[in-house]
């Protein structure tokens, strides 16, 4: 808890340093606008004093008042533009940083975190820090400079009034600090609740059919309702304290106004007030004195939002150091021999080893079938070869080069992969195939579609290969989705082909057809097929039996 607070503070400090330049224009506009407001107050005081004294119309101060109003409005507009820009620059920077870290950490992230939570971090958490850069940082500077300048003007005119302003003004940060401590604690809890609620909504909405058919829609709606209610209670706990600091500000402003008004009232009654214009000017400056403090109080929420976001951002995995340049190898792109040497791996120490001292070799152009019950470590072998995770001990080599010394880009260039259930992106069929090789031309994509027999069902779709699929698009069957994965692998044309139970979710006819396409795909490649399907026997190749993360038997082949 303490460490996380130190980390958050360090993060805030670092961000403040980075954002200082962006905040400068906002501060400059704010100062200019405040000066115009002081001028407007002076003009107004002059007009009022003259009017009250019965001297009638005062054209010059009136003109001054109008000009000052226009200047104030103009600088206000400029300030908002600058404030938006400062927030946008910071968000862009933070978001690309967060994404770079997530992409570098890779698929291993998904074992521990919900992709909905990660999406919320990248989108909502970073949106939430906007106010820190656009509003809070400039407001923090203006909250010091603005009141100080006004107090200085008042000091010259009436030291007693300046004293009243100073004392009431100092009450504000004092009350804020007092309530701020409680509010910061509450804000942390509130953000945890908000993230939980959001992840829960996404998950329940994804599984809404399961909930409805189990007849639990009403119960789940009530649970969601109480979760939302919990969020309300947490938020109110934050606000109850946060509003206390606004109340303190209201109180200070009212006290200053009433005290100064009473002072001049009694001076007038005694007849000792020398100059009505000064008195009015000072009175009109009171709101100007508190205005920057008010903006600061409003922006203080932004800082708390940012702190909540900071914790999620700090938790993201750090960027791995780039592999040392000298050791980056290039592996001959054709004819890859793969060696597993005493590889051990555990995903989670409490669940035992997923791979326990596994050694085997796959020669260039050979097909090896990994067999074994689910949970025996077949997928772990594949995930190591994809670079999703590194072995705890032992090593894997491609043509003798340690796989760990290859940069991720080189790792992925060498391998094509077909998993149990491909993720289809929101987009057209064509875009989903081209995902494997974006520079491929239409002819190559259509070749791949023909190879994977996609044309067979694509022709029946409303727009052929240009039909929208994926999250939100046309629903494809498991066999059709797997054909897209085959087309991707064909288009990628990598020397190593990794197949992780590619037909698990298919019926025998479709399975046989998919295996037929896969067999053609294996020609000339080094292939590792993880499968327990009997149809896998159709593949000519050596068979390795895995049991509890160990190789139990090796049969057939060379």
């Amino acid at each position, binding site marked *: 808890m303490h460490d996380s607070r130190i980390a958050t503070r360090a993060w805030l400090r670092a961000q403040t340093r980075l954002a200082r330049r962006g905040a400068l224009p906002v501060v400059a506009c704010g100062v200019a606008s405040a000066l115009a407001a002081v001028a407007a107050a002076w003009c107004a005081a002059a007009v009022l004093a003259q009017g009250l004294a019965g001297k009638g119309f005062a054209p010059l101060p009136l003109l001054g008042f109008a000009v000052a109003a226009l200047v104030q409005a103009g600088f206000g507009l400029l300030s908002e533009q600058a404030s938006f820009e400062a927030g946008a620059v910071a968000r862009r920077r933070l978001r690309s940083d967060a994404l770079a870290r997530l992409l570098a950490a*890779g698929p291993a992230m998904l074992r521990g975190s919900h992709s909905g939570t990660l999406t919320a971090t990248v989108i909502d958490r970073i949106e939430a820090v906007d106010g820190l850069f656009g509003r809070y940082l400039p407001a923090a500077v203006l909250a010091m400079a603005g009141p100080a300048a006004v107090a200085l003007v008042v000091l010259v005119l009436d030291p007693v009034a300046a004293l009243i302003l100073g004392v009431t003004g100092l009450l504000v940060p004092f009350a804020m600090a007092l309530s701020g401590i409680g509010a910061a604690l509450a804000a942390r809890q509130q953000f945890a609740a908000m993230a939980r609620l959001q992840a829960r909504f996404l998950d329940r909405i994804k599984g809404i059919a399961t909930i409805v058919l189990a007849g639990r829609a009403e119960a789940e709606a009530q649970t*969601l309702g109480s979760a939302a209610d919990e969020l309300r209670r947490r938020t109110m706990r934050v606000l109850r304290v946060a509003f206390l600091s606004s109340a303190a500000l209201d109180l200070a402003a009212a006290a200053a106004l009433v005290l100064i008004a009473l002072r001049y009232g009694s001076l007038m009654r005694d007849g000792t007030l020398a100059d009505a214009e000064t008195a009015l000017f000072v009175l009109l400056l009171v709101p100007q004195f508190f205005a920057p403090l008010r903006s600061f109080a409003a922006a203080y929420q932004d800082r708390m939002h940012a702190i909540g976001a900071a914790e999620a951002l700090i938790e993201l995995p750090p960027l791995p150091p780039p592999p040392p340049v000298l050791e980056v190898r290039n592996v001959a792109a054709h004819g890859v021999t793969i060696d597993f040497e005493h590889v051990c791996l555990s995903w989670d120490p409490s669940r035992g080893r997923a791979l326990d001292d596994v050694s085997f070799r796959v020669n260039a152009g050979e097909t090896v079938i990994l067999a074994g019950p689910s949970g025996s470590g077949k997928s772990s072998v594949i995930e190591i070869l*994809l670079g999703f995770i590194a072995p705890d001990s032992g090593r894997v080599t491609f043509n003798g080069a340690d796989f760990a010394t290859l940069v991720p880009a080189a790792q992925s260039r060498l391998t094509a992969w077909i998993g149990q259930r491909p993720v289809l992106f929101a987009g057209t069929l064509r875009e989903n195939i081209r995902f494997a090789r974006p520079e491929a031309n239409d002819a190559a994509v259509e070749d791949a579609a023909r190879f994977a027999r996609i044309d067979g069902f694509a022709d029946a779709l409303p727009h052929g290969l240009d039909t929208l699929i994926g999250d*939100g698009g046309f629903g494809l069957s498991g066999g059709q989705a797997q054909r897209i994965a085959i087309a991707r692998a064909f288009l990628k044309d990598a020397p190593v082909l990794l197949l992780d139970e590619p037909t698990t979710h298919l019926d025998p006819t479709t399975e046989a057809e998919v295996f037929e396409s896969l067999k053609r795909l294996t020609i000339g490649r080094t292939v590792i097929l993880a499968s327990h399907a009997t149809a896998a026997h159709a593949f000519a190749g050596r068979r390795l039996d895995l049991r509890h993360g160990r190789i139990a038997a090796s049969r057939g082949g060379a």
Partner: protein
Amino acid sequence: MKALLQIAWLWRCRAFWLVAGALISIAALATAVWMMTLSGALIAAAGVLTGAAALRVLGPARVVLRYAERLVSHDAMFRAIADLRVWFFRGLAHSSAGGLGFRRAGDVLSRLVNDIEALDGVYLRVALPLAGAVFLVPVLFWQIGKASLPLAFVVVALFAFAAFWLPWSAATLTLGAGERLAAAASALRVTVHDTLAGLREVRAFGAEGRQLATIQAREAALLAAQHDLATRAARAGALAFLCGQAALLALFAAIGLDPAIAAAAFLAVAAFEAVGGLPRAGVAAGHAAAAARRVLEAANGPPMLPDPDQPAAPPRGNALRFEGVHFRWQDDRAEVFSGLTLDIPSGNRIALLGPSGIGKSTLAALALKVAAPQSGRILLGGTDLATLDAAVVRARIGWLAQSTHLFADTIRANLLLARPDADDDALWAALAAARIADTVRALPEGLDTWVGEAGSGFSGGQGRRLVLARTLLSQAPILILDEPCAGLDAETERAFFTTLNESAAGRTIILIAHRLTGAERLDRIWRLSDGRASAAAG
């Protein structure tokens, strides 16, 4: 705007809190205005003692009222927002029993969270200041009218312009911009979610750079839309400020006529300050109106199948019978069933065989009242499904589908979905029947182990078995198992069927499969082809 009114109608049961917030808000505004008027009068009349005494009371009263206003109005709003969330989920559950269909899960989430949160500004930043503005119009007119009637007209016109016309025009102008903003935010969210959920694909195809570029392009579009809205808001705010200053200018110019106008000037300052945020709120209201429309559209989708007005009594028997059923999903699609007749006596175990796409899952959808046949009847215990409540039917039929969802929750919570009142013994029995009890027992947290997204943290086969355990736990007398062993190895599959034969004794089992292992104990085997079922040897 119509959508906003509909949302407001949903909140009628929160009327007490919402109205209380508005009343306190007006009271706080009244003290503020009174205080400023008194201050002005104090100056104009060179110190009136009664006014000073009143000031001493009004100052603290205003502070307390402002605090109460903030608390009550925020609390009321959060209650209303929570209601809206639950209402949205219910609406969605009502309209999409067959799964999310053509809707994007990421998009729906974006709607739910962003759009519903966009609506919280409606009450706090639009409704409350508007109520205040309506209260201020007569006050301004009366106070200034005492000194000069034409002046009162000028000031009230400027006030009405800032408080009513500017927000209204800002809202209508923003409607389009707000739609663009929401579309941009949703597009960004879908891409980010696709990328993160598809991290395996992204890594395997070395697509990190490309995905990053796409995300940044969408982010740029979002920022442009936000910039557009921010600029509109800033302009509206500046205009409102100028209106206030113009009113003051008019009052100042007339001050020579009557010193009492000084008090009116102070009143005007307070009045314009109170509504200064309204034009900006108009921009937010335009945004909120667009959000409201999407929220309503998502939640008000047509229901899958309406329940009968006067449902028949739940039947006593559990025999399931399809009689000459004709069905197609859409008018332009081929018929899935053309005259399907199938008899499944209570307690029977049958298998339905056939290649994928032949309609095995459709049969389950019909039995579960997710869809209704175009002609023919489906009878449960001799009663037509069409005359029964869907809830009654679904309580009788447990369904294990390919798409059955494993929730990001504990193993216990996932199982209890099927039978909320089950005790631990029942949970363990179901886990044992699904051949996963030993794995769960070996976990340090046992039943309270957290299951990750879509069952990650467990292998595909293990996740499948957890879902299977949930189905077995349900007390439904009929179980439809759609490829229950997909993803399981042959050994586990055989072991599962052996257990199923014991644990589901007395229940009707409809096994949808593409092949049989030989371990199933079946009464009949049906083969689906050409939209009909025919008996197969078995």
